């Protein structure tokens, strides 16, 4: 191959030229008659000579290999459809610098070689699959919160009359969120929290920074533990885990339809979105930090998680579906307890009274 290239170099001698004469057959694409020609290759073109004195010079860029018999090297011209030059196979070595390598699979595969090409293909496939898993986490932070507002708002709206409307209770609930996450409820993208008079033990983060908390999570939970649960939900909101879970479970297409106002997914489906273990671990870590900064004991939250993880799931099924609990998670909260700290209650007695009565309307007795 090296020798051939040297011979075909533009600086070749006349002697070198005669050395590289190749006998070939030419079909001109016009008549069916084959012409015997002699071919001389240099680095840019093929020169064809015929015994009768006729000669032609064809630029390499016009030439292409034609698939065909293994017995000969067949060339065609881009500009003349029927034109064929049939060369002996051993001319390949001389002509390959001019023609490039033979195409077998397709241009880039030939250039790279079959095995590297297969490896590259495998890499691309792996990447596409990996992106499928990771994309929700990449995309979620870039989805504008305002798109999600309507979705969260209409889910809360779906609960209609079940929403607890005691004004003092609502203030106390917001105060509890502010206690664990100062400033969280403020501003255009602030968290909106609603209590729902639904007899299941649950709390959930919804699209658009909404958090809903169901009645038993207020009336039958230690207020400090509720602070831990809310801190955990605030973390889901802040880290955009809700959007991530929506993308993961519904797909990006459904998400766009959802934001476009076509709420195909029902409220229940969104309330029970499940997060990845990583999401939950992040939200727990954030919640532990929030409780620490707020000087609220993490022990009631640890006790609650421990109890729910052991308890028969009928009562807490909803909570467990969306927050898979483990003794390990409870232990993480318990481990952050500092015996020297002087923890303060999450709410004042007055606020706790108001919060307890959030689903109370007027003097009516609440019914479970």
């Amino acid at each position: 191959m090296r020798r051939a290239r040297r011979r075909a170099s533009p600086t070749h001698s006349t002697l070198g030229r005669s050395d590289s004469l190749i006998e070939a057959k030419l079909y001109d694409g016009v008549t069916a008659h084959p012409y015997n020609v002699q071919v001389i290759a240099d680095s840019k073109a093929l020169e064809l000579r015929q015994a009768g004195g006729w000669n032609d010079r064809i630029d390499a860029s016009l030439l292409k290999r034609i698939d065909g018999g293994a017995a000969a090297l067949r060339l065609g011209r881009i500009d003349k459809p029927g034109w064929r030059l049939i060369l002996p196979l051993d001319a390949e070595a001389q002509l390959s610098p001019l023609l490039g390598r033979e195409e077998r699979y397709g241009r880039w595969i030939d250039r790279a070689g079959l095995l590297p090409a297969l490896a590259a293909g495998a890499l691309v496939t792996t990447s596409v699959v990996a992106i499928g898993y990771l994309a929700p986490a990449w995309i979620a932070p870039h989805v504008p919160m305002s798109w999600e507002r309507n979705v969260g708002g209409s889910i809360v709206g779906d609960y209609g009359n079940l929403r607890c409307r005691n004004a003092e209770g609502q203030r106390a609930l917001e105060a509890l969120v502010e206690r664990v996450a100062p400033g969280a409820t403020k501003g255009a993208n602030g968290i909106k929290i609603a209590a729902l008079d639904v007899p299941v033990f649950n709390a959930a983060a919804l699209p658009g920074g909404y958090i809903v908390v169901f009645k038993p999570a207020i009336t039958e939970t230690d207020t400090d533990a509720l602070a831990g649960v809310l801190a955990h939900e605030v973390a889901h909101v802040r880290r955009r885990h809700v959007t991530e879970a929506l993308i993961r479970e519904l797909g990006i297409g459904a998400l766009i339809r959802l934001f476009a106002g076509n709420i195909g997914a029902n409220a229940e489906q969104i309330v029970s979105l499940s997060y990845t273990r990583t999401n939950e671990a992040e939200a727990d870590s954030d919640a532990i930090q929030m409780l620490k900064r707020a000087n609220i004991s993490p022990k009631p939250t640890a006790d609650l998680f421990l109890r729910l993880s052991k308890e028969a799931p009928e009562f807490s099924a909803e909570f467990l579906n969306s927050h898979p609990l483990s003794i390990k998670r409870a232990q993480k909260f318990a481990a952050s307890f500092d015996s020297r700290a002087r923890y303060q209650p999450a709410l004042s007695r007055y606020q706790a009274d108001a919060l307890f009565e959030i689903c109370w309307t007027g003097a009516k007795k609440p019914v479970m």
Partner: protein
Amino acid sequence: MESRLRVLRAERAWSQQDLAGRLEVSRQSVNAIETGKYDPSLPLAFRIAELFDLPIEEIFVSPSRRSSKAI
């Protein structure tokens, strides 16, 4: 719903806060249950029964069996 919760708590010299801590609920819940303003969920009612080691009906008074004078 009427209950003997206040009596049972007093027998043990527990404050509402003590009992709330043992039940892992807020003091407000204990207070509301004791004053009959709030009916606990069944899981909580069972937790209360287990804490005092008594059947539920010995803590909570069935509304249908309540003596007529109480109405």
